[in-house]
């Protein structure tokens, strides 16, 4: 977690004590690092998302397991679970290739949290569901196709 100058000064203004607590907080080994979100959530295609994340050269990996249905009758609620068996996984992003904004969610893991997520996503139409994983400073991905019979992104 990074403080920019303004936030740092505001933190100082709030009180030296609380600032000190905050600083020791971020220095702990377990703290989760959260970079700026840039344009990754507003990107409208997968290539845009990957370049915003910095994962353009991600390698396909069979150590990432995606549990998703082959056919979803309702695109507004598709259950997806991702497990990464790659050592030192620190980040997982969920992408539905053909959604208006493909990046759905991203997860930053400390050592306390296992590299696993289970959630329910919206899908506009049939497409690949992709998991991007950052492990040991490298990006990897896996994908699984979900056929959607009724889209769930509206519009």
């Amino acid at each position, binding site marked *: 977690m990074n403080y920019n100058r303004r936030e740092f000064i505001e933190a100082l203004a709030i009180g030296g004590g609380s600032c000190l607590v905050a600083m020791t907080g971020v220095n702990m080994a377990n703290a989760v690092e959260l970079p700026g979100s840039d344009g990754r959530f507003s990107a409208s295609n997968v290539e845009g998302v990957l370049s915003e994340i910095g994962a353009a050269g991600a390698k396909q990996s069979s150590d990432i397991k995606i549990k998703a249905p082959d056919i979803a009758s309702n695109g507004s609620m598709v259950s997806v679970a991702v497990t990464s068996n790659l050592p030192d996984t620190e980040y997982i992003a969920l992408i539905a290739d053909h959604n208006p904004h493909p990046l*759905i969610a991203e997860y930053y893991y400390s050592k306390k949290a296992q590299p696993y997520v289970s959630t329910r996503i919206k899908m506009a139409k049939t497409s690949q569901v992709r998991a991007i994983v950052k492990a040991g400073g490298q990006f990897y991905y896996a994908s699984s196709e979900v056929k959607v019979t009724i889209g769930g992104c509206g*519009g």
Partner: protein
Amino acid sequence: MSNTMKVRVKNKNGVVDVKVIINHPMENGLRLNPQSGNKIPAHFINQFIILVNGEEALVSRCTGGLSKNPFYGFKLSDMKPNDRITVNWTDNTGQSGSADAVVN
């Protein structure tokens, strides 16, 4: 809007399953109101954090691409009985919610 959320934790030999459901519309801002034809304004959870005894264990940024009343399932390791799990969320309109659970 209802701010209710449910947190369930289950301890299996130190690995704790955390399941969270939050009542939230998760409007992505792209849907049209069928009557008026206007876009329904975006209203979705954009940050979700799990703390263990006050320390961040997991941070998520999300969008209206998650389903309405979103479900989050995670696993935490090296957990002990009486560890306190706190779940915090905020949405794009500045609303927020928080709930606690204690490991059994």
